[in-house]
């Protein structure tokens, strides 16, 4: 079966900077594929090359078997594109934004009107369809941008940071729509900073770092690659700044992070840490109000793969 996306040695130079370094990957038809990476890792450049907005310096990509450089217009017909910045026309109404996009994508008049109504309904914007988009909130603009990306019933949807900085209602609507689209066999290429979002949404993820693919697999398989990174999460009835330092001294604890009112102790031996934790609580008259052991998260994988550079950057400052 033909892949929805096939990146073949895709590379992009900006002067002396190699933003994307000859990457290869495939996205299967009907998959939700997460593309993760820190800022400047090459996510947006990759998406721009896949959507033909940026010409690769080397290599190419195929969209449903069509070379993006040689069969650009055919390849584009398969796509819906939702960029990171909501690029809607503020001086047009929500309805007119959708109708105009439909015209660009050669959707015939009855179909684009039916589709516009359906999408505005789906994204909770139908009642405000005649208002100019300039009066919309950030979340509403985002929802409108996504609905514009869907006007042509794409088989492949590029979503660049779809829920970044959104209100809860908008984020929930978008997540629901993504799930719904996937059930209709739409392939989704998703870039996000929200690792947990990728973990619960994506069939497979790729982690790009410094322009190279550092890892690519299902979230669960990626987590298994760092089984040594397990953790114990604990919350005490009272807290003080010194607890963090003291918890680091417990045997087999590699690192401690404070996450809200909880402490997360990273270890390769959770059983020993639980014992040490129990002793520490008794000695300091602390009562654990919640305690759980956790396997590695996708975020742990992400941090592990990019950790070296975080330290280097810290060192530079």
């Amino acid at each position, binding site marked *: 079966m033909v892949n929805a996306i096939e990146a073949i040695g895709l590379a992009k130079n900006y*002067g002396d*900077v190699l933003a994307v370094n000859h990457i290869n990957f495939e996205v299967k038809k009907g998959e939700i594929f997460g593309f993760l990476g820190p800022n*400047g890792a090459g996510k947006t450049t990759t998406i721009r090359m896949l959507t033909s907005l940026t*010409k690769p310096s080397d290599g190419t990509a195929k969209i449903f078997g069509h070379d993006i450089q040689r069969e650009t217009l055919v390849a584009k017909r398969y796509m819906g594109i939702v960029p990171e910045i909501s690029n809607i*026309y503020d001086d047009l109404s929500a309805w007119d934004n959708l109708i105009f996009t439909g015209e*660009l994508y*050669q959707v015939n008049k009855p179909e684009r009107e039916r589709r516009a109504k359906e999408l505005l309904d789906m994204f909770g914007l139908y009642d405000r369809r005649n208002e100019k988009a300039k009066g919309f909130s950030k979340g509403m603009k985002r929802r409108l941008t996504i609905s514009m990306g869907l006007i042509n019933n794409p088989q492949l949807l590029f979503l660049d940071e779809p829920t970044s900085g959104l209100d809860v209602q908008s984020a929930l609507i978008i997540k629901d729509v993504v799930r719904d689209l996937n059930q209709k066999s739409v392939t989704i290429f998703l870039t996000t900073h929200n690792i947990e979002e990728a973990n619960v949404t994506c069939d497979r993820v790729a982690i790009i770092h410094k322009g190279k693919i550092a890892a690519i697999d299902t979230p669960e398989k990626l987590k298994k690659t760092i089984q040594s990174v397990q953790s114990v999460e604990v919350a005490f009835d009272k807290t003080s700044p010194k607890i963090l330092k003291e918890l680091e001294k417990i045997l087999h604890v590699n690192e401690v992070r404070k996450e809200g009112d909880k402490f997360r102790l990273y270890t390769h031996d959770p059983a020993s840490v639980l014992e040490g934790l129990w002793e520490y609580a008794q000695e300091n008259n602390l009562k654990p109000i919640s305690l759980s052991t956790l396997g590695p998260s996708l975020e742990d994988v992400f941090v592990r793969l990019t950790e070296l550079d975080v330290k280097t950057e810290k060192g530079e400052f």
Partner: protein
Amino acid sequence: MNKSKFSLMQLRADLKASWAIAKKDVRIYYIKPGTLMFGILFPLFMFLSFAVGKNAPAATLIPGLISITILFSSSSIGPMVIPTERRVKTFERLQSAPISFYSIILGKTLGGFLFSLFIGVIPLLIGIVWFETQITSPIALIAGLTLASYCFATLGIMFASFPTENPGDIMMLLNFVRLPLIFISGLYIPIESLPEWGQVVAAFSPLTYANDLVRYALEVKTLYGPVLDSIVLLFFTGVFLLLSMRIQRKFREGVSMRKRRVKQG
């Protein structure tokens, strides 16, 4: 699918998209009181500031007023719209659609052309109503208005093709060209009265031919003849369109590339 059939379908899709882009631009950018007033008042005052005090009858100034109005109205909008659309990333929306780059350029020029055609008719009406201007050749007038409007719209688009998100950058560059043009194209000083070198320079200005064609349509006076005027205007339109494509392709990634370099740096 048959390749020629696909090309024909694509051509149809491109033309439809161009029309959609032009309609959208007219709605968003052109039919605004500020734009309309600027389109009429700026060339009018500019023209009056140079023409008042001359001994020529007012009616003879109308062709020049029409030419200058068309020049400023049609060439201004592209340089305002395209950098603004680059800044708010709506230009990328057009680029990411399954339409050819030609159709985007055609749509953008079409919008400027329609706006300019409408604005250009206003000084003509002023001439007819108040200064007894007469249309001696309706065909030449239609040719003059349409060819000049489209030619100067493509001139504006050509300048707007340079990769900037700031309309001011383009307007500055454009005015370096437009302002000298109005002095060497026979609007204020007849080309015959220019020194020899001035007449040579005038021959390279599209405004010369636009003005000559409109003057022929209203006064039957012409230096080059309506046919040559029309051919040269078409030639300039082709050159501006070709250069627009070239510049756009060359600098297609210019703005995002510069930003990315700064970010990476």
